[in-house]
């Protein structure tokens, strides 16, 4: 199945990607404006279902890495990931046939679409995280054995750094992060490279569709004055973990990550309880009155209680009235291999066990629906 992305989809996708950012991932607003402009200029973006990608396709993930705070000031040139992609093609001596987002949560949901518009390449309906994560070994491409290299980074001057071979994604994370600082704090990337067959094995399917549907549900609930939070939960397969008011935010810097804690005091049915959320760029653990009720890789999303507008860890502050959504992680993130990389222990919470939230991740539900209709 192939469908064309229009302006309304981009608008909805930006909202869905913001919520799936689980507190981090960068603001999709900037990417949205860029993709919207490219569409208005007559460029087109096509989305392809994973099962319709040919076995021998050459698929590459593209996007941006670096600090969102840099990205809101030194706005992207826009084609940095395309320059990285071209360098990678030159190194491989082959042309790329499909693009795939690395991360559907936050800014990186939009950037592959801009590259697709510029390069006239289709984008696979899926991604490597189903949400946002802080480090690049945390995508399913790396978890399920796709080689991290060759990999390319490009800056605003189209300076290219190519990594022909590194040991693994952890090593690439360290090297690429150091290069990104030298590139002014933000860079475009193209990696990893995989075949169509490999893609189907490792991709979290239908997450572009999920983000679009999530955004559409929220927008239409706002328009019809129904409950946008309930609409978001219905599409994502999540449940309402808590409703309350932020009473404390504590942030600290460690090794390049914004770590911290948000405390909420319950309102409505949650009055008398307190929820504590620990984050490292993204929300990691939710404790209700001291008891762990949700952990990574399940999605803990803070949204404005009335509009379902995502509230990121950078803007969360005293007094905001917030609905905390608990969305079950994609099945691909719940395997033992995945939990070793994205479970609580991987973020330093060795004493916290992962108890999966009930329900089915919205993208997995879409995949099941698709396969039921095709069989």
């Amino acid at each position, binding site marked *: 199945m192939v469908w064309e992305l229009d302006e309304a989809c981009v608008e909805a996708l930006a909202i869905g990607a913001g919520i799936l950012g689980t507190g981090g991932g960068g603001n999709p607003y900037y990417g949205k404006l860029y993709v919207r402009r490219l569409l208005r200029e007559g460029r087109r973006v096509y989305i392809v279902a994973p099962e319709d990608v040919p076995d021998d396709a050459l698929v590459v993930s593209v996007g941006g890495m670096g600090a969102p705070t840099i990205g809101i000031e030194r706005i*992207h040139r826009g084609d940095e990931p395309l320059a990285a992609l071209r360098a990678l093609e030159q190194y491989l001596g082959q042309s790329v046939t499909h693009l795939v987002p690395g991360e559907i949560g936050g800014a990186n949901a939009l950037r592959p679409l801009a590259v697709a518009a510029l390069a006239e390449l289709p984008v696979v309906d899926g991604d490597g995280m189903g949400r946002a994560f802080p480090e690049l070994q945390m995508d399913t491409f790396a978890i399920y054995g796709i080689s991290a290299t060759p990999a390319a980074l490009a800056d605003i001057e189209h300076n290219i750094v190519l990594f022909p071979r590194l040991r693994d994604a952890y090593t690439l994370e360290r090297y690429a992060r150091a290069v990104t600082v030298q590139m002014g704090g933000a860079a475009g990337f193209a990696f990893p490279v995989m075949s169509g067959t490999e893609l189907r094995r490792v991709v979290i399917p239908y997450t572009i569709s999920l983000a679009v549907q999530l955004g559409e549900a929220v927008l239409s609930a706002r328009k019809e004055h129904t409950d946008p939070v309930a609409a978001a939960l219905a599409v994502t397969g999540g449940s309402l973990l808590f409703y309350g008011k932020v009473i404390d935010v504590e*942030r600290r810097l460690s090794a390049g990550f914004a770590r911290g804690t948000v405390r909420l005091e319950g309102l409505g049915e949650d009055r008398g309880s307190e929820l504590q959320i620990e984050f490292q760029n993204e929300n990691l653990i939710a404790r209700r009155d001291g008891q762990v009720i949700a952990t990574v890789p399940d999605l803990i999303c803070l949204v404005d209680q009335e509009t379902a507008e995502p509230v990121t860890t950078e*803007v969360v502050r005293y007094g905001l009235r917030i609905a905390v959504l608990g969305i079950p992680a994609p099945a691909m993130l719940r395997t033992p291999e995945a939990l070793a990389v994205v479970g609580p222990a991987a973020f330093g919470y060795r004493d916290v066990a992962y108890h999966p939230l009930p329900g089915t991740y919205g993208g997995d539900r879409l995949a099941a629906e698709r396969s039921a209709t095709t069989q």
Partner: protein
Amino acid sequence: MARLGIDVGGTNTDAVLLDRGEVLAWAKHPTTPDVSSGILAAVRDVLGQAPLAPSEISAVMLGTTHFTNAVVQRRDLARSAVIRLGLPATTSIPPLEDWPDDLRDAVAELTVILPGGHQFDGREISPLDWQALKQLAEELRRRGVDTAAVTAVFSPAIPTHENAVAEFLTAHVPGLRVTCSREIGRIGLLERENAAALNAALVPLAERTVRAFQQALSRLGLEAPLYLSQNDGTLMTAEFAARYPVLTFASGPTNSMRGAAVLSGLSDAIVLDVGGTTTDGGALVNGFPREASFAVVIGGVRTNFRMPDVVSIGLGGGSLVGPDGSTVGPQSVGYRLSSEALVFGGSRLTASDIAVAARRARFGDPSRVAHLPTELVRQALATIDQRLAELVDSLKTTPGAVPVIVVGGGSVLVPDHLEGASEVIRPPHAAVANAIGAAIAQVSGEIDRIVSLEGQTREAALAAARADACRAAVAAGADPASVTVVELEEIPIAYLPSNAVRIRVKAVGDLRGG
């Protein structure tokens, strides 16, 4: 020495004379289309009331929504040039990309992105292109453009490129007024550039308006310096305001809350402004309104102004009461209260009628509500009290009871004992809280920068930022002895291992000689 505070709102122009925090006189007059006549009338009124010579007034502080309204109504805007320095970066989103078409058409004579700007670590993104700037100057002269906005990447931290381009264009384009973005905004290029572009479009209007303000005052024999209120509740000189009118945006609600703080003598409290149709609530923290955390949209344009975090509910003096008293509002008789409420001889049961029946207030004719069933009055009061208590609770930043300051025409609705409130305070002169907020305003200095903690300690970086903010406050007119740091925000730069941190510091102090 006394201070004169003036608030020019959409409906009323208020004036208040203040001597060391004490209200000597106040007046409320309709705002006039030319603005000046309304100011003259209100100021004449207060000067007539007080045994005070104009020469005894040390400073005049004016808050106005005039420039916000010009943007919202798309009137009196000048066509300007919007210049961004950032090539080869930033091209993915050109200037004014997300503006409403009608406003962009009204304002943008020319938009351009040129080389320049800096990286977060202080390196140049690219050097300025003097050839391109010469051509730009030529183009501006040819088109007769007389106002421009310049925005360079990371100018809040490193202003050199913005300054150099402003200087060059001012020297080469006769009559050109240049707005530098770093004077207006914080980090966040698009929002700062938007604010700078709005400002450039307002400069010719601001020059005319500020001149008219000054002429009106001097006709009254007032020679004291004129200051205008900014959105953060502090002051700028009239000369600066003529160049940076956009900084007056959102000063109204800020002044009102600052006024409530001074009138009550409290610096940490909840403020409820009860009107005819709605009640607006906000929180005072250290004497200043708590700011909203989301980008503020003005006239359809995203800016990085911080607005007071105000929550409105549909409950006011004119709110209609349901048959059994279980609902009060959001429907309201609004300004027709004085003819439609029962106590004023009308036929609609309003929240004010309930307040009179319950003896919370005495106005109108109480005999007209004497027939109301006790149960109905009791239920309606309970509904009102519960909605107010919920509003107070939603505004609180800490558990526990807090003082609640009540202002506005519908303030009789608020009971003396409100759940969640440690006390309910009804300051005198609450009707002119805006003008009082303007009169007591201080001056501020602010810095916003990203610093690397490689090669310096966090303490040293913070100390340098604090000192620079204090210096900026003194440069803006503050008495050095009174300057203190009121806000310090330290935000780690996520996803970068370079130990970079964004530091934002605001210092305020009393006006020198005020």
